[in-house]
């Protein structure tokens, strides 16, 4: 495999000691196995997520996201911009489509960007990490670095909302996207192709201001995973990971349930299959410990391809 380089937009939750710190650790390990180099966009800023619609006006949010596109083009010209966070990807891509598609919005955005000494003249495509894996590598290529077996484990691929809608990944259906299942299968995992809550919302940003409403959604997702025999849930979104993992104890406390379903990132599952240690795959960064996956990560390599 030849080396592939991308302009990297990690997003706020993937910073050191932030809520998705383990995600980025596992992405680093996974990229090592795939000979991917992610070069962070220098001085990248927050995308303001999906919640800032009342706090920040349209042009402010456009300017904020455009700044990242300009910095990427300036420092890493021509390299595709890759985000690991679903929200960051969505915001950056929406911004690009809006300012590329409207002379007026582009001009206004540039007037604002000028105050930061920047100017938008177009940018490389904005992609999510999973798009890169599926489109630039393909499921067959992703099999190659596998050295450990995931046999005996059943994974519920939880696609959720924002990697799925409105843009979708690799032309997959909005109602039953299969890319996450195929990613897991390519590294030897068994998946549940049809489970009721594969694309259900976890509550997203409303997990904070509307906890009961969001926790009801989370409970349904976790119970559905259990009902379908899953050992763990796998997700591509840092907010889903945090919401679905962290609130299980709160749901247990208030509703008398006994939920204890590990929630992992696709990159963690892939890293383990590629031979990463517990630490390298970020498996030590969880509240609900992924014991079965940790066991596999601690075992010697089986050499399975």
């Amino acid at each position: 495999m030849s080396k592939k380089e991308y302009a990297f937009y990690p997003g706020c939750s993937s910073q050191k000691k932030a809520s998705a710190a383990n995600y980025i650790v596992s992405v680093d390990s996974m990229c090592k196995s795939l000979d991917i180099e992610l070069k962070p966009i220098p001085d990248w800023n927050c995308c303001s997520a999906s919640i800032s619609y009342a706090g920040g006006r349209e042009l402010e949010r456009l300017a904020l996201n455009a700044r990242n596109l300009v910095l990427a083009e300036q420092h890493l010209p021509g390299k595709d911009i890759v985000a690991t966070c679903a929200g960051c990807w969505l915001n950056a891509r929406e911004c690009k489509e809006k300012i590329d598609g409207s002379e007026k919005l582009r001009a206004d955005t540039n007037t604002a960007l000028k105050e930061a000494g920047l100017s938008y003249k177009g940018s490389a495509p904005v992609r999510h990490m999973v798009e890169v894996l599926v489109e630039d590598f393909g499921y067959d290529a992703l099999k190659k670095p596998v050295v450990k077996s995931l046999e005996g484990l059943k994974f519920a691929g939880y696609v959720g909302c924002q990697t799925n809608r409105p843009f979708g990944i690799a032309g997959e259906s909005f109602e039953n996207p299969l890319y996450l299942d195929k990613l897991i299968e390519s590294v030897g995992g068994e998946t549940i192709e049809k489970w009721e809550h594969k694309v259900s919302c976890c509550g997203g940003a409303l997990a904070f201001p509307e906890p009961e409403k969001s926790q009801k959604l989370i409970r349904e997702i976790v119970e559905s995973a259990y009902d379908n025999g899953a050992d763990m849930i796998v997700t591509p979104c840092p907010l889903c990971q945090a919401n679905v993992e962290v609130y299980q104890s709160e749901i247990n406390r208030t509703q008398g349930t006994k939920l204890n379903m590990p929630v992992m990132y696709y990159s963690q599952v892939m890293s383990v299959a590629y031979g990463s240690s517990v630490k390298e795959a970020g498996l030590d960064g969880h509240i609900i410990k992924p014991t079965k996956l940790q066991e596999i990560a601690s075992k010697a390599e089986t050499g399975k391809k």
Partner: protein
Amino acid sequence: MEKLPTTHMTASAGNTAASTRYHNNFLKEVEANVEDGQWVKMCMQCGVCAGSCPLGPHWEHTPQKLFMMIRAGKREEVLKSDSMWMCTSCYNCMARCPRKLPITHIVHGLAAYAHQVGLARKKQSTRFFSVLFWNNCVKTGRLNELKLTMGLYFKDGFMAGLKQAWVMRDSGRQLMMAKRLNPFELFGGHRCKDAKGITAMLKAARQIEEQQRRAAS
């Protein structure tokens, strides 16, 4: 047509000015002031959005109904409603709308407008959270997660904040041990080098938008 005041309008002055200018034509007001508002007239009232929303039952008025209410001139009922604040940005409605309305954006835009003219409910928690999040992330260009959480917990006062923090104490401790929560973030966290440039840029963006809104009168 009366002229709008040129500098910082209070929400209530803005509301009076807007309702006067757009008297009896709420749809026009929405088209002029709400992000993607010009799409509202394209709704064919099929109801797929209402049926697809994960928090659907919690909307006093579903998106379908809101669009009809806008067309019926129900200004106060729409802008005072908690409904649009129930949107989690899941985009299910947008993916399924047969007319391709950017419903998520319209609904957010309605919420934002209700906030701007001061008609949104003062204690609406998502309204509070949206403003809190934005102010937090633009301060240094990077979100300070701990300050965000504390800001939300303590919004109803000191005791309420302590209570919330206590309820979540195990999760907090475990996240800290998992190296996904940094208590020192309270004293400052990650930041952009050019935070000043970002501030200047955003100030300019707001000025442009306000100028354009006034010029459209």
